[in-house]
């Protein structure tokens, strides 16, 4: 699949990637590598791509937005709504593709919202305005809203960017658990190779609009990859269980 915003700016240069149900995939790449464009294409927001993107054997460009929303849910990096909707109403918006025109949820929709809130811990602040939540709580509410969509795939756009150390772990760990219990496919863009190693079971490394590496994180990510594609000289630290941690030492050109 290829994508260009205009003739002179080819952003995605022939990606070829197959994702199986239930995988937890991290997309790793520096800023401008094409991650966001890739997500936008996969999510059906950019339709003028070359080649083919299929979801359950259906070409994306042929699917309606409602059909897509039932299969794919996106957790944005951050969302600041203009209006102070109650968190409960905010999560209910995840049911848009089912509730339809007039916004009258039935008992099942409300039950789904309750369940999603319970699973994410958002049930603690359902009756507070979304705007008044802390950064970590907002992220939980966003995840709950995505769960309310009851989709098969969850796309997370840099889910931990705006969070502190503790909330980052809470959110990432929650997403991993949800993926395992609900059998949801995870597609998340991450910046930190250490998060990739800890939370993903497959990593796709993007560089210059193409995929340069694809496989299990602990096999793919190494000191050479970080030097070649991220301009970082790093040292890999491993413990007896084989877990890896990368300590960045120096930026290189």
């Amino acid at each position: 699949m290829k994508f260009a915003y205009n003739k002179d700016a080819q952003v995605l240069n022939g990606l070829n990637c197959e994702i199986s149900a239930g995988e937890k995939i991290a997309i790793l790449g520096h800023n401008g590598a094409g991650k966001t464009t890739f997500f936008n294409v996969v999510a059906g927001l950019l339709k003028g791509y070359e080649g083919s993107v299929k979801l359950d054997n259906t070409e994306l460009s042929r699917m309606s937005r409602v059909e897509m929303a039932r299969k794919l849910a996106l957790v944005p990096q951050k969302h600041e709504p203009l209006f102070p909707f109650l968190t409960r109403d905010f999560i209910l918006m995840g049911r848009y593709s089912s509730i339809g025109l007039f916004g009258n949820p039935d008992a099942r929709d409300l039950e789904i919202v309750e369940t999603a809130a319970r699973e994410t811990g958002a049930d603690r602040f359902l009756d507070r305005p979304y705007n008044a939540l802390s950064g970590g709580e907002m992220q939980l509410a966003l995840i709950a809203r995505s769960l309310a969509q009851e989709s098969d795939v969850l796309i997370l756009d840099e889910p931990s960017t705006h969070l502190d150390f503790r909330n980052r772990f809470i959110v990432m760990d929650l997403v991993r658990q949800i993926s395992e219990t609900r059998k949801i496919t995870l597609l998340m863009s991450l910046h930190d190779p250490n998060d990739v190693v800890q939370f993903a079971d497959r990593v796709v490394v993007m560089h210059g609009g193409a995929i340069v590496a694809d496989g299990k994180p602990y096999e793919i990510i190494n000191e050479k990859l970080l030097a070649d594609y991220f301009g970082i000289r790093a040292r890999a630290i491993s413990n007896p269980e084989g877990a890896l941690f990368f300590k960045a030492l120096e930026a290189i050109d």
Partner: protein
Amino acid sequence: MRRAMQYLLYSVILLLLVYFSLNLGNFHIPPQQVFSILLAKVTGGPLPETGRYEDVVLLSLRLPRIIMAILVGASLGVAGAVSQGIFRNPLVSPFILGVSSGASFGAGVAIVFFSHIPHAMDFLASLGGLVAVVAAFLIARHPGGFTPRLSLVLAGVIISSFFTSMVGILKYLADTESQLPALTFWMMGSFSAIDWNSLNPVIYVIPVCLLLMIIFSWQLNILSLGDREAAFLGMETEKWKTFFLFLVVISVGAGVARCGVIGWVGLVIPHIARAISGPNHRDVLPLSAFLGAGFLLIADNIARAATSGDVPVGIITALIGTPFFVYFLRRREATIWS
């Protein structure tokens, strides 16, 4: 149930306001006569013996004017709330896409060049408003087939300023004895020339548009999240944006073509509505309709009763609207918008 009770309460308040407004005016009619004339009209019985022109003043002058003020006020309130939701901006008014300046230009052309042709004013003002909005849309439209909101706002500013300068040319050309005052007066907005004839077709157009916007108001909650988010939740954002903006332009344009440009209602009323009902558009839109109707009716009462002449109502709405807006900006904005 809770909503039904609220609407009932608002309706009663509005009806009381209408009755009060009917009693108001330079031509004094005793309240009991107002009541008996109305009762006779509603029941179809014979009009009470009043001897003078009480029934004419009441039924042919005051009543159509009050109905028009209610319709236009409701449309401006709702259109303002819808515009602010769509553009995600609290400073947006329903005139944002240039409908008022386009209509002003159309009205100006009618006053300066076609004053001898009946209905030229209505036709050209409507046409001007429509042309302005379509032009704004065409300017803002991205080759990829979508219309970013910021581009729309900017296109609206460009179109407005273009038509404002065209109105300037018309003012320059206009005859200073008759045409220039007429144009200036029209641009300040007034209900003084309203009779039963001028209510047609506004009396159908505005209620239909308002009803459609209110029925589908939940869509605005989603739309107000932003295009990307709304699309991910399954919304066809372009279709809904076009649907709502079309209704905004038609309902506001219908009023502007008849009564001129009445500012501030569409900007201030949605803020008050949100402060009362919370952010859900299913509550905000109906409340904005009631508040807009009531506000404009009161403003028009002041316009026709405060002085012996007939002050353009646009001046009154601006005089009330500006301090109100300052108050809301300072007292409520911190919690409502941030």
